[in-house]
Each structure stands twice: as structure tokens, then as C-alpha cells.
């Protein structure tokens, strides 16, 4: 192995520790169906489905789980004839 590359590398263990802490905190908190982000996701989708026919291809759901905050972004394309109300949930 090239000795210069060896010294150029910084420790990767702290990154591993941090990633695991965030991941496991979320996984432990979401035993069964008590994961808040997941509940919100499912209920938001249910509400949208109540008012219009959901074309799943036109709905994008993104999650990013962080240490302090998670974000849930729901992007829905609502066609003109889906109903009178036109809005964008995010």
C-alpha cells in the first residue's frame, strides 16, 4: 500500500459512530408503528387520497432523518380537474 495515501486518510471511526447513533436512535424509537415521521407520511397520503384520486407517479415523498430534526417532504402534483381546490403540500 502506498504510504502517502495511508497518511492522507483521516479517521473514519467517528463518522461510523455518528451515523450509527442517529440511525439506531430512529430505529429504537420506531418499534412497531410508533414512528412519527412514518405516521405523518401515511396520514398525509390518506388525506390526499380522500380528496382526489392519487396517481402515485405524481407524488414524491422524501425523508431525511437527522440527529436533532427529521424532514418529511411530500410533493403532490394536483391536476386541474382533480377538484376545485388546488394546493401544494410540503
Amino acid at each position, binding site marked *: 500500500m502506498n504510504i502517502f495515501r495511508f497518511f492522507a486518510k483521516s479517521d*473514519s471511526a467517528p463518522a461510523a459512530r455518528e*451515523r450509527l447513533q442517529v440511525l439506531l436512535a430512529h430505529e429504537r424509537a420506531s418499534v412497531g408503528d410508533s414512528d412519527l415521521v412514518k405516521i405523518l407520511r401515511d396520514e398525509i397520503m390518506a388525506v390526499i387520497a380522500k380528496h382526489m384520486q392519487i396517481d402515485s407517479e405524481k*407524488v414524491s415523498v422524501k425523508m431525511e432523518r437527522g440527529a436533532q430534526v427529521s424532514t418529511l417532504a411530500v410533493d403532490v402534483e394536483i391536476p386541474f380537474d382533480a377538484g376545485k381546490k388546488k394546493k401544494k403540500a410540503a
Partner: protein
Amino acid sequence: MGKVIVVTSGKGGVGKTTSTAALGAALAQGGAKVVVVDFDVGLRNLDLVMGAERRVVYDLVNVIQGDAKLTQALIRDKRLQTLYLLPASQTRDKDNLTAEGVEKVITALRKNFDWVICDSPAGIERGATLAMRHADVAIVVTNPEVSSVRDSDRIIGLLDSKTLKAERGEQMEKHLLLTRYDANRAERGDMLKVDDVLEILSIPLLGIIPESMDVLRASNVGAPVTLSDDRSPPALAYFDAARRLNGETIPVAVPGEKRGFFGKFFGRKAA
């Protein structure tokens, strides 16, 4: 139509997930459109190795059960535009994988990607047999160690009997990927030799991945090793393996083996 690869081994901990991520990224780095699929329902880890664990919204089981569309469940890699991940479910169990559901998903992926790489769970149960079911090509990941070689032999038997290809009477294309190869131990004679493993399993060699700290480091930071350090020995070995998958003929170098002038020309034939 893309090709479906299963990365399998029977034994756990030999490097299936690492190899799935590294080969998937290597193929995508070459410009191909690639999706890596985690079949380890209940014990997923491909998301972690790919560094996408915080972005999982839907998973394979959601798609099979109709809770989400395939396009919603696919996670695009942040570093490589043409690399996607379909995660496994962490909370449900393997019974949620149905043969029909898996077939539908694989058929759809095959239409949209050049390579569909299925990361099999360890064992020979439902998850493993479903992961290999629709494969065109199998990569058998093996460590140069007796229990791994034995389990690989068992898996090769299943590949030749339980897959769609086998049932149609066709020959399953199988490749051996020898991982965690330690040149020092091989030199001391404490490790099964490459030729021994090849003779016992008698399937063509796709590559030899040296045992390396770079693999651990890559998983620590959540990047396939071909992305985290593309000049490291394991990365170079994975790039070569990816080229062989693409049909190129490149001689396989045995890590640490000193080759003479003739050895370079009459090297081991690759898969």
C-alpha cells in the same frame, strides 16, 4: 433489457453487501444505469453501506404490497446520478416477500436499468431463494476458508436447481468472487489457495478482493469502496471485476503473488 445479478454466498459475513455496493458503484461509474436491491428483509444493511440510511422512505415490501410505487421507493445515490438503491424493509419479516411480488418488481427494474444487482441474505431460506430466482448471472462470494467454501458449494447447487433459469433447463452463469484474501497468510500457507478454491467449486473466477482496511473505512463513512477510495487495492479489484462482468477479458492478479515475465503473459484466465 438489463441483466439481473444475484450476489449470494450461503454464509454470512463474507462480503455480499460490500461487494454489491462496490460492483454496483463501479458499473455506474462506467456510465451504466444500475440499481442495487436489498433482499435482506428484517436485517437490511445495504442502505447503511451505501450511505443512504437516513433517506429511506419506502422499501421493497411496501412496493410488493402496493403501498408505494417502485419509483417512489428507489433512492438515487447522491454521488452517482445513475446509481439507485431499493432498500429492504427493516420492520417486517421475510414472509412479506411473495414470489409474484418479487417477479413484478424485478421485471419492472429490468426494463429500466442496465444492471439489477440483488443482495441476497445469508442462508438458504426464502429470502435467499427469492433473491436468486430471477437472476441471469450469479456472483458467489466466498472467503478462502473451509466453511465458506462448503456453503458456496451448497449455494451453487441451489442456483442450478431452484432458479427460473435452471427450471427452464438453461445454464445459470456463475462467477466466483473471492473476498478477504490475505496475501500474507497465503504466503505462510495458512490459507486455502486460489487454485484450491477454484478446483473445488469449479466455476470461473470473477476477481480476488484483498483483505483491506479500506473496506472497513468505506463502510464507516457510508460509501462503496470504489467511490470512497478509487485507487485502493480492493477498489481496483472491484473495477476489474466489473469490467469482466461487462465481458472484458482481463487476467486476474493474485494479491501478493510474485509473477515472472511469463506469468504476466500466461496468467490465470478470467471468467
